[in-house]
């Protein structure tokens, strides 16, 4: 195939370099144009130059895109070994190093693409965050300081590295806004939704694309809650039916010509309408099956307000309910444990036992593992609003006022963090600077990276915050995109490794 020119777009990992070496030694194509998504080390260039005996390589460029941009203010790194951040370094040092390297590469590619060099702050209580922060700082300020020496603006942007374990509640909650709900109930991977496991779906709807860039309806509705989506879909379907009816009214040749001209657009609209209708139908079915309205109401109560006794009763009732699925039961107990960890441990034990007896696939000790990782002692922020007096007062006021929608009352902890940044009140004790960095005044660009993954609820929070034009632009990133299933899977993996390693040690 030597009449073809080959373009390679790769991550500059050692594996890829080895594969390329083999290719270049016996080249298949006429010309090779290599693009790498991150910084190439000199040694890697040497290796490539060494193996290019036939001089087929025409150009070697770095094109900084070592991350996946999911939404305008949200990126992810899709790291498979995400659970490593929960384990201490001694358990599996090489794997943890790999994880941290990948995160550092992703963050540095992001800043090279943005052409900025930030001031770095990290969450004090998290080892992973501290490690990553220091390594990023080393890369940007010492190792590749020439590359990162961009035109300095008045106020440097801020990179804030936090840990998922500071807010374990958000990934566990069930979501009711469109994008978050689809990811929670079905799963969005790279802006694609795979509906094959749900029966009776027509062939062309089995894998659909859900992206705000290409779908105007989705862009307008991705942050709306389920009820409003239903109304909007109905109006879209009505519009479409009007169009279909007018298409049937063909009298003259001009009408016919117009119909044929408009047919491709009609088809596209038809596809779009049926896609959204299919998604909402499937989600309604799931909500009905798993009785999610009931479960989610209790979840929101646990996360936001409510007394301990009432919560305990509600959770017990739901645990006894046959229709509730195993994962929902697990989530309820986890949320209860996170909230009322210290109050009445007896009742907590009761719940654990009930959970173990009801759910056959439950891995025992998972909730305790979660508490060990993200219990009240480990958390920095005020997750439930019951530490700080001001927050308690705010909660009471909210309780008295009542909420519009019981199902969307939860605000992720990220929202509070963003507010403190805007007011300039992010505590140095909790979020220290790296080295001797210092920031004067408020930053205008803030990149928040959550080690352990972000959720679509948080991305919604960020998008809404950016829309208020407060003068600060927030960008959110994470190592993966979490939903409750992925979070629990990470917990299970980490628990398994911790257990096996402790048994070894």
């Amino acid at each position, binding site marked *: 195939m*030597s*009449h*073809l020119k080959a373009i390679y777009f790769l991550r500059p990992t050692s594996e890829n370099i080895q594969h390329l070496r083999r290719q270049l030694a*016996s*080249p298949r194509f*006429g*010309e090779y144009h290599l693009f790498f998504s991150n910084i*190439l080390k*000199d040694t890697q*260039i*040497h290796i*490539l*130059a*060494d193996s*290019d*005996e*036939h*001089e*087929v*390589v*025409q*150009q*070697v*460029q*770095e*094109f*900084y*895109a070592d991350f996946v941009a999911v939404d305008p203010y949200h990126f992810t790194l899709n790291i498979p070994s995400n659970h490593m951040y929960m384990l201490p370094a001694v358990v599996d040092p090489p794997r943890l190093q790999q994880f941290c390297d990948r995160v550092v590469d992703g963050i540095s590619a992001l800043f*090279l*693409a943005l*052409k900025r060099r930030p001031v770095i702050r990290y969450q004090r209580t998290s080892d992973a965050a501290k490690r990553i922060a220091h390594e990023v700082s080393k890369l940007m300020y010492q190792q590749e300081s020439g*590359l990162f020496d961009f035109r300095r603006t008045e106020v440097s942007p801020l990179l804030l590295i936090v840990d998922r374990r500071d807010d374990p509640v958000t990934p566990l909650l069930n979501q009711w806004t469109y994008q978050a709900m689809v990811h929670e109930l079905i799963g969005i991977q790279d802006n694609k939704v795979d509906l094959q496991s749900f029966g009776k779906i027509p062939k062309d709807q089995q894998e659909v694309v859900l992206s705000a860039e290409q779908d105007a309806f989705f862009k307008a509705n991705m942050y709306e809650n389920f009820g409003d989506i239903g109304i909007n879909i109905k109006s879209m379907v009505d519009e479409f039916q009007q169009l*279909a009816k007018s*298409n*049937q009214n*063909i*009298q*003259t*040749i001009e009408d*016919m*010509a117009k*119909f*044929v*001209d408009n*047919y491709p657009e009609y*088809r596209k609209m038809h596809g779009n309408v049926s896609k959204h209708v299919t998604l909402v139908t499937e989600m309604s079915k799931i909500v009905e099956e798993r009785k999610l309205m009931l479960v989610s109401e209790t979840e929101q109560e646990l996360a936001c307000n409510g007394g301990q006794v009432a919560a305990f009763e509600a959770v017990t009732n739901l645990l006894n309910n046959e229709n509730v699925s195993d994962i929902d039961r697990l989530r309820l107990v986890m949320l209860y444990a996170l909230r009322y960890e210290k109050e009445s441990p007896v009742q907590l034990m009761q719940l654990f036992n009930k959970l173990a007896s009801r759910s056959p696939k439950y891995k025992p000790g998972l909730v305790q593992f979660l508490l060990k990782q993200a219990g009240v002692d480990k958390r920095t922020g005020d997750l439930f609003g019951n530490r700080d007096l001001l927050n308690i007062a705010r909660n009471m006021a909210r309780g008295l006022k009542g909420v519009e929608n019981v199902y969307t009352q939860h605000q992720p902890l990220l929202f509070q963090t963003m507010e403190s940044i805007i007011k300039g009140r992010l505590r140095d004790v909790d979020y220290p600077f790296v080295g001797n960095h210092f920031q004067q005044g408020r930053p205008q660009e803030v990149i928040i990276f959550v080690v352990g993954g972000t959720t679509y609820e948080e991305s919604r929070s960020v998008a809404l915050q950016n829309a208020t034009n407060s003068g600060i632009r927030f960008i959110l990133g994470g190592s993966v995109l979490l939903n409750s299933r992925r979070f629990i899977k990470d917990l299970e993996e980490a628990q398994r490794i911790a257990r096996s390693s402790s048994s070894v040690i």
Partner: protein
Amino acid sequence: MATRNRTQIFRKHRDALKSVRAPSSSSASTSGRSGGPVIEMVSSSLLHPNQSYAPLSTEDPGSSSNGAVTVGLPPAWVDISEDIAANVQRARVKMAELTKAHAKALMPSFGDGKEDQRLIEGLSQEITDLLRKSEKKLMRLSAAGPSEDSNVRKNVQRSLATDLQSLSMELRKKQSTYLKRLRQQKEGQDGDDLEMNLGGSRSQTEDDDFGDIGFSEHQMAKLRKSEALTAEREREIQQVVQSVNELAQIMKDLSVLVIDQVISRFLAAIYYCVFSALGIILVNAVLSSKQGTIVDRIDYNIQNVATTVEEGLKQLQKAERTQKQGGMVMCATVLVIMCLIMLVLLVIKEILF
């Protein structure tokens, strides 16, 4: 996006390493390399005698040094696809010219506009030729062949087909808007002429009653009117012909689209319209045959008009008479007289008492 070019460093390293490696094997490699292309070209030409080498300026077969049997030239269908792409490009350029010519022809001018028409016709003809040739070549692209690159061929074919389709739709849209605007302009002019003609003929027939003014003038007016009618009928027939052509084009477009329920209903509508269009043509033909040609029937028309006008006069006189005799007039006059009498009586009463 931010990028950084590392090609310089790479080349530097490569050259440095080459000079280190080179002294032992340089002679062999360079001679092999220079001999390589010659051998390959010869063998490839033997293998594929009907391949055209003209568009292959950029492909260099010298990179594969493992044996001279490997063909360094792309397969034959790449030539076809490149031809089609070149045609599409040329058609686009011509379409831009056509738009300009359309705009110029539509502007009001005192000249005859014949050259503009010829230019437009020529351009449209060229573009349609280009599109038709490209479509034929496209059919050749999908011919059965080895299954290795069938995916690539299908993709290339699809992309070229979408380009061609969009171009032909654009062309037709431009032509139809141009014709519509042209027709509007012409109708504006012709409508006035028609009215003047009719008005003239009407005034002439009124004079007919008062004597024999001049048969030739009368006849000329009638002739003009009939000519206008003929022209109008011809235009209608042209319209129908054009509609049938448009229908043919639409059917061709439909063959590209996916058939589903909407389309089948649409096809039913088309069949109905086609039949009705044919029906219109047939009816027109029958009517014209019944009347024969217009010119022969002038005396018949004149007689018709004369009799109808006489009839009309009679009816008018009758109507006047009946209206005069009408009860309404009687009542009204009686009432007015009564009013006057009452008024007189009132005055007399006042005077006497």
